[in-house]
């Protein structure tokens, strides 16, 4: 372990200089009250799912009025929360109830023929974020904004991480995202749901596998193994993967046989 003198910070501004932009964004959000924090995803969800329904062709004027009331209740909760603690509930329930009334009054706007897939997914995410922001405890401002964990500066890691882990994880995440682009034009709802579940499970499997491969690089000894040891390691790995490789070969032969039979 390094002596305390070596671990000490060089100056008082060092901790602030190395603060990430995410920390600054989080600090900015924590300055807002709970209702204001929830109002951001609420406004997003309203703009994507309620406003288009209220201002769709054939929607009655009452639908427009309830949509505007939802927006007003959201704004009122932000303004009133400093004086009245329960104002948060006005924003939550006001937006949810008025949005429900709007959708009931203009049901055709939510049918698959009128609702764009990308907008539908984005709206669903918006409502999920709004629900999370309403249910979860709000971010609170730190009582000691300038305080640091200790006088001895940041802790040092016990070991150095190998470079390239980020590339592995990025590759896995890109594959998982690419899987989410498949099968958005399925008309049957049950099959569309099955495709989404399968693509989600496949994406998770790929991310888990990529993480395992990246972690395998960390398990190796720092010293270069002898030739005999390296050979034994290779043999162990091949032996572990051999049954699965044989299964893969059998599946390949089966596929070829099916193609030959069809032709």
């Amino acid at each position: 372990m390094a002596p305390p003198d070596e671990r000490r910070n060089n100056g008082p501004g060092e901790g602030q200089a190395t603060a990430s932009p995410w920390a600054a964004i989080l600090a900015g959000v924590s300055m807002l009250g709970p209702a204001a924090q929830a109002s951001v995803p609420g406004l997003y969800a309203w703009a994507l799912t309620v406003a288009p329904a209220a201002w769709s062709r054939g929607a009655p004027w009452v639908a427009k009025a309830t949509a505007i009331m939802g927006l007003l209740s959201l704004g009122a909760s932000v303004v009133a929360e400093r004086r009245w603690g329960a104002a948060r509930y006005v924003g939550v329930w006001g937006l949810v109830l008025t949005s429900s009334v709007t959708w009931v009054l203009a049901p055709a706007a939510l049918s698959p023929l009128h609702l764009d897939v990308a907008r539908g997914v984005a709206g669903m995410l918006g409502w999920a974020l709004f629900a999370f922001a309403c249910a979860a405890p709000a971010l609170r401002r730190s009582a000691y904004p300038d305080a640091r964990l200790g006088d001895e500066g940041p802790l040092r890691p016990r070991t150095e991480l190998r470079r390239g882990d980020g590339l592995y994880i990025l590759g896995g995440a890109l594959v998982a995202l690419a899987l989410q682009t498949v099968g958005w034009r399925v008309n049957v709802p049950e099959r569309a749901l099955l495709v989404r579940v399968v693509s989600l499970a496949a994406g998770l499997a790929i991310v888990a596998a990529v993480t395992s491969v990246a972690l395998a690089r960390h398990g190796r000894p720092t010293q270069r193994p002898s030739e005999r040891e390296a050979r034994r390691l290779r043999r162990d790995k091949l032996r572990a993967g051999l049954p699965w490789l044989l299964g893969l070969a059998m599946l390949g032969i089966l596929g070829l046989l099916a193609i030959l039979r069809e032709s």
Partner: protein
Amino acid sequence: MQLIDALAIVLIVAAAAAFVLGDAALARAEDLKALYWLIIGAVSVRAGVQIARPRAKA
């Protein structure tokens, strides 16, 4: 990077391609093809993980 690690990565890339093909077949309602490709994807993932990290769970 050793050759055996490259083989593990190739298997996982192949698994990703198989999953995409399986998902697309499932969307086209070709269930047998979808099942075939999804099984190939699952076996490839398992093979890749076992080769990279013996006795690991994917």
